[in-house]
C-alpha cells in the first residue's frame, strides 16, 4: 500500500503534463474567444457629433443594454419562431427516414447493402453551401429541370421559394444532407446488438416487424437520443442554407434565422457588440434546450431501467 502510494507521488505531475496541451488549446481557442465575446456584449461604441476625426468613436460600457435590446428585438424572436417551424419539419422527417433506412439495411434479406449505405450517406459529404446552391438551382422555375417536366406535363408549378413551401424547400436540403449521417449512427448501433437476442426472439415466434419494433428500436434508443440531440443543435444554428438561398429570392430576409441576424449585425451593420450579445443568447438557449432534452431522455431511461 505504502509503496504503491510512493510510486504515485513520483508521477504526480504526469497527468497535468498530459493535460497541458489540451488546456492551453482550450483556453486559447475556446475560453478566450468566449470571454472576448462576453466582454464585447457588455460594451458598445459611442459616437459623438458627425463621427469624424480622431476620438469621435469611443468604446464604452453598455451594461446589459445589448441584451435587453436583443431580447426586445422582434426580428430575433421572429427568426427563432421561423427556425422552430423549420426544425419541426426537419428533425422528425430526417430522423424518421434515418431510422427506417437503418432498419431496412439491417433486415435479413437485403442486397447491395454497402452500395445503398454509401448512396444514402453520400449527400452528407457535400458541403452545406454547395448543397443549398444545387437545390436552389432546382427550385428556380426558370432553370429547374423539374419545372420543365411539370410544364411539359401541364401540371401546376408551385413556387417553392415563397411562404409555407419555402420551409419545405429549406427542410428538404437539410434532410437530404443529414439523413445519411444519422442513418449511419443508428445503423452502427443496430449492428452491435448481439445475435442471440434475435435468435431468442425468433424462437419465440417474433416476426421481422415485431423484432424491429420491440427489440431493435428500444435497443438503439440511446443513438436516437444522440441523433436528436445533434439535430436540435444543428437546427438552432441553421445558417448556410437560408443564406445561400437568400440572393435567389425576395422571400428570405437577411435576418431569416437568428444566426443570420447575428451575422448581419456583425458584418452587415458592423455592430459586433449587439451581435456578441445575440450570439450569447443563442448559445444559452441552445445549451438549455439540448441539455434539457438530454436530461429528460436520461431520466426516462433510468425510470425504465428501474422498472
Amino acid at each position, binding site marked *: 500500500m505504502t509503496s504503491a502510494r510512493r510510486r504515485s507521488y513520483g508521477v504526480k505531475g504526469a497527468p497535468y503534463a498530459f493535460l497541458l496541451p489540451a488546456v492551453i488549446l482550450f483556453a486559447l481557442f475556446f475560453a478566450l474567444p468566449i470571454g472576448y465575446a462576453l466582454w464585447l456584449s457588455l460594451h458598445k461604441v459611442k459616437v459623438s457629433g458627425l463621427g469624424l476625426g*480622431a476620438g469621435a468613436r469611443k468604446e464604452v460600457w453598455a451594461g446589459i443594454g445589448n441584451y435587453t435590446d436583443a431580447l426586445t428585438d422582434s426580428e430575433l424572436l421572429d427568426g427563432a419562431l421561423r427556425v422552430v417551424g423549420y426544425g419541426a419539419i426537419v428533425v422528425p422527417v430526417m430522423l424518421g427516414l434515418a431510422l427506417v433506412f437503418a432498419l431496412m439495411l439491417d433486415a435479413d434479406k437485403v442486397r447491395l447493402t454497402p452500395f445503398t449505405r454509401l448512396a444514402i450517406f453520400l449527400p452528407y459529404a457535400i458541403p452545406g453551401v454547395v448543397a443549398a446552391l444545387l437545390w436552389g438551382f432546382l427550385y428556380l422555375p426558370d432553370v429547374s429541370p423539374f419545372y420543365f417536366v411539370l410544364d411539359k406535363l401541364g401540371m401546376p408549378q408551385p413556387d417553392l421559394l415563397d411562404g409555407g413551401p419555402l420551409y419545405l424547400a429549406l427542410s428538404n436540403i437539410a434532410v437530404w444532407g443529414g439523413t445519411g449521417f444519422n442513418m449511419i449512427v443508428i445503423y452502427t448501433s443496430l449492428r452491435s446488438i448481439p445475435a442471440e437476442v434475435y435468435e431468442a426472439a425468433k424462437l419465440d415466434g417474433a416476426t421481422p416487424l415485431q423484432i424491429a419494433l420491440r427489440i431493435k428500436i428500444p435497443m438503439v434508443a440511446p443513438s436516437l437520443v444522440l441523433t436528436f440531440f445533434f439535430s436540435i443543435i444543428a437546427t438552432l444554428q441553421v445558417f448556410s442554407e437560408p443564406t445561400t438561398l437568400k440572393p435567389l429570392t425576395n422571400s428570405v430576409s437577411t435576418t431569416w434565422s437568428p444566426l443570420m441576424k447575428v451575422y448581419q449585425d456583425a458584418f452587415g451593420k458592423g455592430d459586433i457588440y449587439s451581435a456578441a450579445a445575440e450570439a450569447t443568447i443563442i448559445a444559452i438557449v441552445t445549451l438549455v434546450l439540448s441539455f434539457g432534452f438530454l436530461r429528460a431522455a436520461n431520466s426516462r431511461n433510468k425510470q425504465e431501467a428501474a422498472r
Partner: protein
Amino acid sequence: MMFYYREDLFKQYGLKVPTTWEEFAQTARDLKKKAPDKDLTTFSANDSGLFAGLAQQAGAKWWTTSGEKWKVGIDDAATQKVATFWGDLVKEDAIDNQPMYTPAWNKALNTGKQIAWVSAVWAPGTLTTAAPDTKGKWAMAPLPQWSASENVTGSWGGSSTAVTTDSGHKSAAAKFAAWLNTDGDALAALAKEGGIYPAASGAQLSGAFLKSPDFFSNQADFYTKAAEIAKTTAPSAWGPNVNVAYTSFKDAFAAAAKNKSDFGAALKTMQDDTVADLKKQGFGVAE
C-alpha cells in the same frame, strides 16, 4: 449609369429606346402587350446600389450634414418619386420582381426573356458572363430622364481613395492618391489591371477605352458615349451608415417587391432604420 437594351429585340417588337422614365414605363407595357411572357427588365431588391444611383439621378441627397449633425434624406421627395415609379411598374406586372444575379436572371438575359437592363459602365463584363449567347446584340443608351429637358445620370457603385487620420505619412499618401487617380500611366494600369472606369475625364477615351468592349463590338462609339454620359453624373452624398441603409433596403424592398405592395412604405422603413441606427450609435442627427 445608362440604359442597356437588346437592339435586335427592340427592333423586332417595334420598341423605341425610351428617353424619359414615362416612355420607359410605356415601353415596358408595350412589350407586355406584344409578348406577354417577356419583361423589359426586373426590379431587383438585392443590389441597393442600383436604387441609390436612380435616386441620385432624381436629385436625392441621402446623407447631408448641418453643423455637427447628420441629416438623412432617404425618404425625400426625389427618392419617393423613384420608389413609387418602380413600385407601380411591379404592381401592374409591367416588369418582373425577381432579383438579379441569380441563375434564373442569367437565363432570362441570355434567352431574351428580359430585354433591357438599367446598369452602369461595367455592365459589359456582367453581361459577358450572364448572357454569353447575346454578344453583339446589345446596345447602350443614356439613362431615361425624369423630364425631357434634363440630362442627368446617377452612379451605381464606384470607389475612391482616402487617407485615414491615423496614417503616419499623410501628405505622402495624399500625393500618391492624387497620382493614382490623375496620372496617365496609373490610370491605364487601373483600367487594365483593376477594370476601373476612371473619373478623370482625360483618361476616359485613352488606353483601354479606345476600343469598345468585345461584347459591344457592334457599338463602335461605346466609350465616347460613356464619356458623354459620365459628364452628366449627379453629385452624391454618402453618410456613415450606408451599410445599414443598404441592408434595410434589401429586406424592406424584397418584401415589397414580393408582395407587390407599397414601395413608399418600404422607403420609409429604410429611412427609419437608418436614422434609428445613427441615433443608437450616438451620432448627432438633425430631424
